[in-house]
């Protein structure tokens, strides 16, 4: 990794400059992660120290992957992440393509579309929870008119749809900005050339614009999966609390419940380690891709 051609000399100064960042990282990031790794292979002793912690190899992991509740949580997380990612990305792409056609109104539409990013996931959850409230909400009222009986307190699918909408809603802004930036960097001459050759608008989009957007699409795919898996704790915690009947019990919510409410440290630590593995894989994918990022 590079430095400047010419550097300052100083024996202690660079260490002093790095110290605050590195110390905080070691104390609050690296050390707890080691603890999680350690706890994941131990069975917790009792609180009185009569029975000490015992080393149990991978028992916690075996127990975890034999636990139907955990397998259910994996499945729920998968459906939730895919749903949130697809919904927010497809809506954002539609908006970006439409806004990109505009000349005078482009900035005003952008302003109207970016601000939900500022709203915390927990608040987004509460907002949609209110709209979908089975007794007074507007959506159940409208769905009732077409004969659908909405109740996310009883019906797991309803609850899942609600948390997906709430989580995707604020992420649309983010995806929109990146798609718009991507669309604006596509050379106009390419599109003109295709138009002269007689390609229809629809054909131009699928054969020129969309392939050129693929680096951004892939990048957003990773970012959105990370968002859906790790940043949506607030949506679940403030609204469904994982229910009804575990239908929205995503991994990060489960690891919190098992650690802080059920006080099952061994299992919680094993779940932490699994999550750590997932983040590491996603981060590596993201950075490898960025190295090879196509510039156009």
């Amino acid at each position, binding site marked *: 990794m590079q430095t400047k051609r010419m550097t300052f000399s100083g024996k202690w100064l660079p260490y002093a*400059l790095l110290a605050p960042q590195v110390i905080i990282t070691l104390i609050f990031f690296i050390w707890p992660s080691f603890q999680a790794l350690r706890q994941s292979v131990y069975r917790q002793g009792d609180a009185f120290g009569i029975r000490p912690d015992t080393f149990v190899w991978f028992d916690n992991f075996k127990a975890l992957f034999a636990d139907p509740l955990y397998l259910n949580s994996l499945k729920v997380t998968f459906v939730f992440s895919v749903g949130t990612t697809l919904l927010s990305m497809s809506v954002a792409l*539609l908006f970006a393509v439409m806004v990109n056609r505009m000349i005078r109104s482009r900035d005003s539409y952008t302003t109207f579309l970016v601000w939900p990013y500022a709203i915390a996931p*927990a608040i987004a959850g509460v907002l949609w929870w209110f709209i979908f409230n089975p007794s007074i909400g507007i959506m159940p009222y409208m769905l009732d008119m077409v004969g659908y009986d909405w109740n996310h307190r009883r019906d797991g699918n309803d609850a899942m749809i609600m948390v997906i909408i709430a989580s995707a809603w604020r992420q649309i802004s983010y995806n929109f900005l*990146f798609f718009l930036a991507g669309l604006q960097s596509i050379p106009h001459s390419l599109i003109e050339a295709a138009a002269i050759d007689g390609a229809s608008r629809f054909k131009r989009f699928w054969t020129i614009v969309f392939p050129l957007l693929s680096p951004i699409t892939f990048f957003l795919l990773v970012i959105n999966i990370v968002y859906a898996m790790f940043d949506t704790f607030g949506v679940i915690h*403030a609204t469904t609390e994982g229910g009804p009947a575990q239908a929205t019990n995503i991994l990060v919510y489960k690891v919190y419940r098992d650690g802080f409410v059920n006080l099952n440290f061994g299992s919680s630590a094993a779940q*932490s380690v699994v999550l750590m593995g997932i983040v590491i894989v996603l981060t590596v994918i993201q950075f490898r891709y960025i190295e090879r990022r196509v510039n156009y």
Partner: protein
Amino acid sequence: MVENNRWGNFFAHVVLILGVAIIVFPVYVAIIASTHPPGTFVRGVMPLWPGTHAWENYTTAITEGRSRAGTPPIGGMLWNSFIMAMAITIGKLSISILSAFAIVYFRFPFRILFFWIIFLTLMLPVEVRIVPTFQVVADFGMLNSFAGLSIPLIASATATFLFRQFFMTVPEELMEAARVDGAGPMKFFKDILLPLSVTNIAALFVIMFIYGWNQYLWPLLITTDPEYYTIVMGIQRMVTGGDSEPLWHLVMATVVLAALPPVLVILFMQRLFVKGLTETEK
């Protein structure tokens, strides 16, 4: 425009106006709900036109909250959120710019190792190490304090990377000139590098402030004392802390107040926000 398609443009406007309406709708409903008396929410469907109780609801929320259900007044929570967001933002910016300066402008043993340690923070969000991090903070006696709310969150790989990238584009001649004139590293940092970084700092400030304000899991873990509740996590207490149905008029007034500061930041600093967002993710 390749070809001018009147109907196509009309159609695009229709899609966008509908889209904006759907995007805005939840917040519109919240604002409307926060202006109605509690009786409105007992039965029937939620109102879609403003009511007359805005003033009462907001003053109740700000000064009283739902004290009986253990939720403190919103005023205090807003203040806590502000302190936490500012502490996180300023903390992240200052330690990141210093580490980037060290990494770019010095050659010293273990430089790469330190860089990788900082990089690791990206792979270890709070969610994957919840219990042990809580234990560390508890051991330091930092539960229920602003130090506990902010310090564990201020390590930042993204900010460090952004500053590093920017410093690499600063012309070498500036530093050579400074050295010829006899300026030491800290003088160069303060008088040349910092002024050059102002736009980057401002863009990151916007992003980090929103990040800090919207923290949810972390305050939830380490605050048990209502004195230190922040507004975003406090809403959850308002929703579930009561007996049966939430007091929607107060909840929605709180939601509006909790969302307002970061939304205003985005609306008034849109350019910086977009710059910060697109550059931190590179």
